[in-house]
């Protein structure tokens, strides 16, 4: 190999390719691709920008502020969970030394609204505030201290309204209406067969009410960034998860044509769904519009981040499930009440995800589900890793354990007997393309069984147990929601393959995946690939980095674009070699005749020649597979999702039955990810998801009182430390998804979804009591065990 693929210059700092290392101790299930690993796809390779991330040179939003800010903005937020805004007095604030402006709703020239699905969230509240994070004014000042002092000096007069604190209060007769349509926003339903009759006829029926908690994304890199208006273009550099949508939302809210809003993603320190809703982009953009030519900065601290941002939906899930004498599931009847908080956010879609995943990876002939999204004066709830599929998995897996116990059968056997097999349908009636639930279960049990349980006798107050979960997850937005990715691939001036994609890398390694796909498709080394992402004015729209879709969608778009570019190159080669392009083919970094070995030119020569002849060495492609919107009466859809991912977990815990403390001793996770394009990154997603799952199962909880968050910081919003999690044993199950890029599906969300119910199942096994309320912190477990 010549050392370079195209052109003549050598790019700097080639990323190192790695061995296809197997996970620590955990055996990898034989991959259908084992023999095919040649190019970058299927290899663990170092993070493209790994050096920047470990040397501290990667710039995150707050780092831009330290370097570039001319002015600073702060947000004035509601002091009440629910109130009318009577007046806003800015005089005092404007007198604060250094304060330059105080902006209110009057200063917002556009719709003054945002929201990913419903545009119901005011940028700056004008007459009413619905939660304590609602913004009412923006203060701009010369220094951050002055902006903070100005913020504290803005006097807002409120007429306090009754606070709706909970789902129960919101649904009570006479509750104040928080949104024009009332407090219950359009729920979603499933009507499949006749669940009521089937339950009545069942041999056993088990009912349980599950309560899940409010969870915060708690990414470490709090919202921060800068904006600048040059008179023509408003450039905003803030981390999000979907730059193009953010540009649209900013443009709408502020009354600018979308072409005049440029969003550039700085490095993002985690997201997990928490950057899906717009955060500071509009505020900082609004402030920048007022001060042309100045770079305006805005950042939250942890408390403001928690106070302002949406959360994971807390839910009450009333679940009844039946089985026949042979241990086959007969029916499920589910009512879900979900606290949507003050605004819709992505709540409607979360409601649908709950209903479409209501019976998980199990065959259930009769299903009735009703989901009610209920507005309260708590924080809006929206996207967080799992997107509703997390909460419902806690319920259906909880039911599997309870039903098995009631039937007196083994909980693993019971699952095995009811998991969907090829040809079976999930809750939506969709026959899943390649169900691998059983394979995941077997693989996770094999790994768990490879080590024996500790045999030392336990003191009387300690109990050990293990639990199991099997889950499924529909990839992408699904249900007919427009879902597409574009990408552009070109040969750069230095001969490198340049990949342009609007996809956002939030830290998980999306940039690596698309670089690997492009390099593989173009037949070049990864060191000859350069990735440009997430800039609305540089990169084609790729949709959001969410829904476990980045690998599948952005990867496919890049693959298609690279394929187009190869065709163009073959055209050029045909002209150069005076044959029909169909006579030619790529072989590594050369083009040769299919039938005539004498025909040959290197890619470098070809590119040089093509340039001379004026060929545009660039191709763009669109990947837009269709899903089908469900029937709103029945919730059924033959193709609700493009593909499904499956996973199974086993968790082993030690429970102190006197104090309620729980320690996870082992955790094994197996996921079908399709092709693992970067196995190390896949394992990174699995282990990280498991830790977040353990956090949700055991400790994380946003506590409200009267709409006020009582624990808006890391002293009391408890996250798992290295001492709370065992080394996660990952089993990567590879399969070949027919539509996925090189057979890949994705991996982001399922590991968290599988982890939570496995931990709960283990607590049940250890103590004989099945948890139904999260998190299982010491007090709750103690309460469950003592009936207190």
């Amino acid at each position: 190999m010549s050392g370079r693929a195209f052109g003549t210059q050598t790019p700097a700092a080639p990323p190192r390719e790695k061995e296809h290392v197997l996970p620590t101790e955990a055996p990898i299930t034989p991959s259908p691709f084992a023999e095919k690993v040649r190019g970058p796809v299927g290899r663990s390779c170092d993070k493209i920008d790994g050096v920047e991330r470990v040397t501290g040179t990667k710039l995150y939003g707050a780092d831009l502020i330290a370097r570039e800010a001319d002015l600073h903005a702060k947000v004035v937020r509601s002091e009440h969970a629910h109130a009318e805004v009577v007046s806003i007095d800015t005089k005092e604030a404007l007198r604060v030394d250094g304060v330059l402006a105080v902006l209110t709703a009057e200063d917002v020239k556009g719709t003054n609204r945002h929201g990913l699905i419903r545009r119901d969230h005011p940028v700056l509240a004008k007459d009413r505030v619905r939660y304590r994070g609602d913004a009412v004014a923006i203060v701009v000042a010369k220094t951050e201290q002055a902006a903070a002092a100005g913020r504290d000096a803005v006097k807002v007069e409120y007429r306090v309204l009754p606070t709706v604190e909970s789902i129960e209060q919101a649904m009570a007769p006479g509750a104040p209406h928080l949104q024009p349509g009332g407090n219950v926003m359009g729920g979603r339903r499933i009507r499949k067969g006749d669940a009521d009759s089937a339950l009545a006829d069942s041999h056993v029926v088990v009912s349980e009410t599950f309560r899940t908690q409010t969870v915060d994304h708690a990414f470490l890199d709090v919202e921060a960034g800068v904006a600048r208006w040059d008179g023509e273009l408003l450039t905003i550099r803030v981390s999000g998860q979907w730059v193009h949508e953010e540009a649209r939302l900013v443009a709408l809210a502020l009354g600018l044509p979308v072409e005049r809003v440029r969003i550039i993603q700085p490095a993002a320190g985690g997201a997990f769904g928490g950057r899906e809703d717009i955060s500071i982009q509009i505020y900082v953009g609004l402030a920048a519009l007022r001060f042309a030519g100045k770079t305006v900065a805005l950042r939250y601290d942890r408390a403001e981040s928690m106070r302002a941002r949406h959360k994971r939906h807390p839910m009450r899930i009333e679940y009844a499930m039946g089985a026949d004498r042979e241990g086959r599931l007969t029916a499920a009847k589910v009512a879900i009440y979900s606290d949507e908080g003050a605004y819709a956010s992505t709540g409607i879609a979360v409601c649908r995800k709950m209903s479409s995943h209501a019976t998980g990876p199990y065959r259930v002939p009769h299903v009735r589900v009703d989901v009610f999204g209920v507005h309260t004066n708590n924080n809006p709830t929206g996207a967080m890793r799992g997107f509703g599929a997390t909460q419902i998995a806690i319920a259906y897996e909880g039911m599997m354990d309870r039903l098995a116990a009631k039937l007196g059968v083994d909980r693993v056997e019971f699952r095995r007997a009811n998991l969907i097999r090829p040809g079976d349908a999930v809750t939506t009636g969709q026959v899943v393309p390649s169900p691998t639930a059983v394979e995941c279960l077997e693989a996770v049990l094999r790994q768990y069984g490879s080590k024996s349980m500790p045999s030392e006798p336990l003191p009387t107050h300690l109990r050990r147990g293990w639990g199991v979960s099997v889950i499924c997850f529909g990839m992408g937005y699904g249900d007919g929601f427009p879902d597409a990715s574009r990408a552009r691939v070109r040969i750069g001036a230095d001969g490198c393959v340049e990949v342009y994609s609007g996809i956002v890398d939030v830290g998980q390694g999306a940039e690596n995946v698309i670089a690997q796909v492009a390099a593989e498709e173009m037949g070049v080394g990864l060191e000859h690939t350069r990735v440009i992402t997430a800039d609305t004015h540089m990169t084609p729209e790729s949709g959001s980095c969410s829904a476990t879709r980045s690998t599948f969608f952005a990867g496919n778009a890049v693959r298609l674009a690279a394929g187009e570019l190869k065709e163009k190159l073959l055209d050029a080669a045909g002209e150069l070699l005076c044959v029909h392009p169909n006579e030619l083919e790529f072989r590594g970094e050369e083009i040769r005749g299919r039938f005539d070995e004498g025909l040959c030119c290197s890619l470098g020569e070809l590119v040089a020649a093509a340039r001379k002849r004026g060929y545009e060495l660039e191709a763009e492609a669109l990947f837009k597979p269709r899903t089908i919107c469900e029937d709103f009466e029945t919730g059924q859809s033959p193709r609700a999702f493009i593909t499904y991912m499956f996973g199974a977990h086993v968790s082993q815990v030690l429970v102190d039955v006197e104090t309620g403390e729980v320690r996870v001793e082992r955790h094994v996770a197996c996921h079908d990810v399709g092709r693992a394009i970067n196995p190390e990154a896949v394992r990174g997603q699995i282990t990280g998801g498991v830790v977040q799952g353990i956090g949700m199962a055991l400790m994380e909880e946003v506590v409200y009182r009267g709409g006020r968050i009582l624990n808006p910081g890391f002293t009391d919003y408890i996250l798992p430390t290295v001492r709370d999690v065992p080394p996660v044993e990952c089993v990567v199950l590879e399969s070949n998804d027919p539509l996925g890029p090189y057979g890949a599906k994705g991996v982001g969300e399922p590991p968290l979804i599988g982890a939570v119910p496995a931990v709960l199942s283990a607590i049940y096994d250890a103590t004989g009591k099945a948890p139904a309320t999260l998190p299982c912190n010491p007090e709750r477990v103690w309460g469950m065990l003592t009936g207190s």
Partner: protein
Amino acid sequence: MGDSGGAWHLSCTVNGEPVEAEVDPRITLLTFLREHLLLTGTKGACLEGECGSCTVIVDGRPINSCLMLAGQAQGCSIQTIEGIGDDKKLHALQKHFIATGAAQCGYCTPGLIMAAKAMLDANPSPTEQEFTTAIEANICRCTGYESIRQAIRDAYREIHG
């Protein structure tokens, strides 16, 4: 000793270089490093000592720079992520953090590397427990910690042959 209103003369060493600055001693060391010296590799995340993102090494000990006042750094030797390696020559920890995939979003990474470095510098033969203790107050929300522990073990092996 000495008192002063507003600005203060701070003399310290940062990454081996002497630093002389007129600063308000009441700002935190984190703010001083990030906003005055533009050493933005040190990150703030919780500002209450619960996450370790802002860890730097002061006179050989890992501390949370969000909880130390700039004035308390008087005369101290401070080491930050920028001082231990760069793209031309990575520190063993930096190298292994990349190699094991221990840096996903990378936001916690500088703090973790500094916490680990302080331990490796001070402890020639750490036990498995000590590897863990060194990073027990550093929150990583992405990776699940094991790749981080592995990176530190690998770096230790490299450093100590």
